[in-house]
């Protein structure tokens, strides 16, 4: 029995093992070139990804563990793939960056793995407490990673802010979960499902559910729970920001999809209005606040708020197509946004700051790099045939299918608005003169990671295969 469970949890165990291994390796090898730890982490993440993908066939129907405390299914697998790819790309992308800036390299990669482990727990949680464990493991690691650039006061400030606000969100979650437990008498999703279908929803349960929802909204940085994002994104070491803005956001969505489209699906009429409000506000406020930004990391932070709003359209649709759309969107968003942050890493390491004006004339200095950035930005803006376009298309599609015309309308208009600030970066790169700025020094590791991201963003112009996987996963879940 135990052996079987261990067999099922092999990806999680391997992630844990990798985390411990890189920390130990760093302790043992004190001197010398430790860049290999970064490359090893990336390779390990890819290897775990392959192991994870191998589970696909065996999970035609969901497998509950320990009476449903964890549920292994295909939807969870796709999200785990997103987290592992995030670790792989972020680790590869920060090999040079980390070896220049950080003394404790092993812990840096170790924390990335721990964070991913937490997210994997979230993605297959079948119980409010498992979900909480995953949430805490993921965010605690991220607090440390955010503050990892110890010499930078901004980084420390960002870490502290994230810690205080994140802890508040956790407290809100626990309070909500306790209310749910108090009214329903269980924290198991499957049992909550049965309870609702028999007894309906009581006031206490609704309040508790809202609190839980608020905690997730914090995690994905949806308006009005987005205040932390710009400061934390700006202060954190840039590869960490990239990981935080993609994998961590995906983890929040994994939890939302699991809860709202799982046990709470029958009560959709109750929560739909809140998700619609979150989604609409995020798209409008996020895009408007991104317009005046001068710092590219802050701009991408607000753009990330808006992107969370798009993905929420899929949740609000409360349908199979919506779950599929959100999953596909988050999958492609990983490459698009993480790739953009890695370009920011490269430019920021060489130039020394992250102002948008630092990109002036980049196309004259580094044509390849600016072309990559242009592709990634256009994908963020949802320009066909790049991956970001398909992501939004399926979301809006789900929205229209569920009759959310107003929300979809806000979404498409907000996308147009967003192109303004993405094009402002394009303007800096292509139209502004270089004015004697030096050529940006490329970091091999980050360049490789960016190339992978760009290839994925362009390759997903043919979205068929991934879409089919997402479709199967959503079909099995709903």
């Amino acid at each position, binding site marked *: 029995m135990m052996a079987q469970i261990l067999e099922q949890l092999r990806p999680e165990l391997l992630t844990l093992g990798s985390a411990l291994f890189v920390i130990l390796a760093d302790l043992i090898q004190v001197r010398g070139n430790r860049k290999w730890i970064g490359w090893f982490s990336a390779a390990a993440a890819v290897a775990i990804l392959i192991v994870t993908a191998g589970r696909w066939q065996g999970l035609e129907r969901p497998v509950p563990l320990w009476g449903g405390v964890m549920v292994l299914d295909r939807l969870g697998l796709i999200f785990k793939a997103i987290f592992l790819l995030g670790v792989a790309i972020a680790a590869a992308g920060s090999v040079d960056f980390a070896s220049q800036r950080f003394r404790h390299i092993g812990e840096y990669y170790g924390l990335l793995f721990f964070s991913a482990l937490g997210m994997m727990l979230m993605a297959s949680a079948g119980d409010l407490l498992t979900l909480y464990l995953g949430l805490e493991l993921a965010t605690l690691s991220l607090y440390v990673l955010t503050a990892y650039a110890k010499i930078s006061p901004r980084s420390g400030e960002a870490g502290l802010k994230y810690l205080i606000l994140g802890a508040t969100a956790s407290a809100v979650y626990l309070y909500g979960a306790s209310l749910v437990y108090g009214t329903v008498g269980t924290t198991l999703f499957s049992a909550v499902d049965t309870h609702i279908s028999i007894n309906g929803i009581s006031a206490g349960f609704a309040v508790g559910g809202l609190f839980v929802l608020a905690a997730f909204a914090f995690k994905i940085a949806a308006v009005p729970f987005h205040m932390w994002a710009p400061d934390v994104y700006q202060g954190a070491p840039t590869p960490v920001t990239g990981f935080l803005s993609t994998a961590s956001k995906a983890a929040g969505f994994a939890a939302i999809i699991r809860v709202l489209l799982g046990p709470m699906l029958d009560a959709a009429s109750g929560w739909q209005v809140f998700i619609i409000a979150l989604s609409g506000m995020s798209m409008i406020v996020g895009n408007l606040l991104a317009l005046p930004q001068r710092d590219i990391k802050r701009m991408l932070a607000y753009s990330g708020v808006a992107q969370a709003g798009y993905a929420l359209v899929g949740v609000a649709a409360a349908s199979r197509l919506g779950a599929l759309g959100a999953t596909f969107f988050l999958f492609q968003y990983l490459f698009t946004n993480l790739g953009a942050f890695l370009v920011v890493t490269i430019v920021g390491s060489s130039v020394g700051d992250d102002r948008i004006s630092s990109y002036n004339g980049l*196309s004259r200095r580094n044509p390849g790099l600016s072309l990559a950035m242009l592709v990634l930005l*256009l994908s963020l803006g949802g*320009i*066909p*045939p790049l991956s970001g376009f398909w992501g939004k298309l*399926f979301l*809006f*599609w789900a929205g*229209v*299918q569920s009759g959310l*015309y107003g929300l*979809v*309308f806000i979404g*498409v*208009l907000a*996308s*147009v608005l967003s*192109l*303004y600030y993405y*094009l402002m970066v*394009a*303007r800096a790169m*292509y*139209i502004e003169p270089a004015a004697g700025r030096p050529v940006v020094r490329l970091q091999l590791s980050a360049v490789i990671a960016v190339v992978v991201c760009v290839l994925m963003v362009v390759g997903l112009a*043919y*979205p*068929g295969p991934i*879409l*089919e996987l997402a*479709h199967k996963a959503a079909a099995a879940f709903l």
Partner: protein
Amino acid sequence: MSIPHPLTIILVAPLLAALIVMILPRRNLLAIRMVSAAAASIGLVLSAWLCYTYLHEHRGGLQFADRASWVVGPGISYYVAADGVSLSLVLLTGLVIFCGVFASWTVVHRTKEFYCLLLLLVTGVFGVFVSQDLFFFFLFYEMAVLPMYLLIGIWGTGPKEYSAIKLTLYLLVGSAFMLVGMLGMYFAAQLPLGQPRTFDLTVLSKAGYAHTFQVVAFFLLYLGFGILAGIWPLHTWSPDGHASAPTAVSMLHAGVLMKLGAYGVLRVGIGCLPEGAQAWVWLVGAIAVINIVYGSYVAMGQRDLKYVIAYSSVSHMGVVMLGLAALNEVALNGAVLQMFSHGIMTGLFFALVGLVYERSHTRDIEAMGGLARQMPGIAVAFTIGGLASFGLPGTSGFVAELLVFLGTFRAHAGSYLIGGIPLFPILAVGAVIAIVVTATYVLRVLQRVFHGPIDESKYGRLTDARTTEWVTLVLLGGLLVLIGVYPSPLTTLIGSSLGQFLRP
């Protein structure tokens, strides 16, 4: 003789050329230009051949189809095919880009990127005209719009960054309306039982739609496409954009891109939502006449030569939209012919303005004068374009405008203004009167720029068109006259495919 996959070749040639240009060394200007010219030639020759074949062998229906499934579940497929209407516009695009490549021969600043973007843009334009899948239609539309931002922003003149972002945002707002309308059409189509949902335009145009849906969706599409077609009051991006853009981009933009909007209204709006179109003809017609009158009056007040041409485009696109609103065979034929004729004419105008500006370094009409003595070829070509612009018999403009106005007089006998006055004859009268204004501003420009006393100190040493520049003058100027004298091949080509838009 037959060529396999002709439409795909037309699409892939410029795309491939763009990729080749991208890897060519920056300094090898000749190779960059030759590759671009080769791609443009392929497009021109192939589109001319397709028009000829269609006219002689098919005469009706969608031909030269290529189809490949793209995303299975939602029913998206790469599906290109063309009928007479598409082919005439494909030919127009082929002509304008062919001339545009030669008109850009003098671009030396970042030549590589320039041609890359220009070819990408052209791929998008060709794509829109031949896509029979709504989804790819949208994809190519965006592909045609976005390179414009950089093309104007980098190589433009005057307030180029302002014009570039204004143009881009206007057109993207338009595409947002289109996208919502399209998604709505996808879900609202009443398909036969058991048929999976699809973006296939031929299926969607045969599917029924509820009346209310048609009315709402047509309005969305009209707004979305109309912005690109330059409908008043959403036209303000176009004069700024055209005036700031480099020569070849102005040519393509006014010559071809604005037609994408009108084509979209025809193909998607009128083709799929006939009842919706009927419900809005009064609005489309009225706004079209405002375009015609307003555009020509504003053109009269401009000092900048490019702004004159740009506002005349706004006015001429009004004629196209009026023909679409009239919705009968004569007017539709006129509307598509006007798209073709105006495309050639504006392409010629912008090329000439580019040549004049390159030599005199000014576009101020008041500052010039007597240039005909130095540049007789350019002056003759400009005169031909000007005559076509106000529809002198013997030029293509005459045929097109005559057809539109004839059709409009007879259109929609049932719709009244107030108190029993029929609406469309009134619109036609208004539009015809505006033609007089057009004649005024065209003749004024001709007189001020090319005739009268010349400032010998400034303009005494200007030269006429040279080598490659003659290509545009002869080809486009000649076509304006040729179509004016012998329009029947083109009207037959267009007329062969109008039946689908004329359902009772």
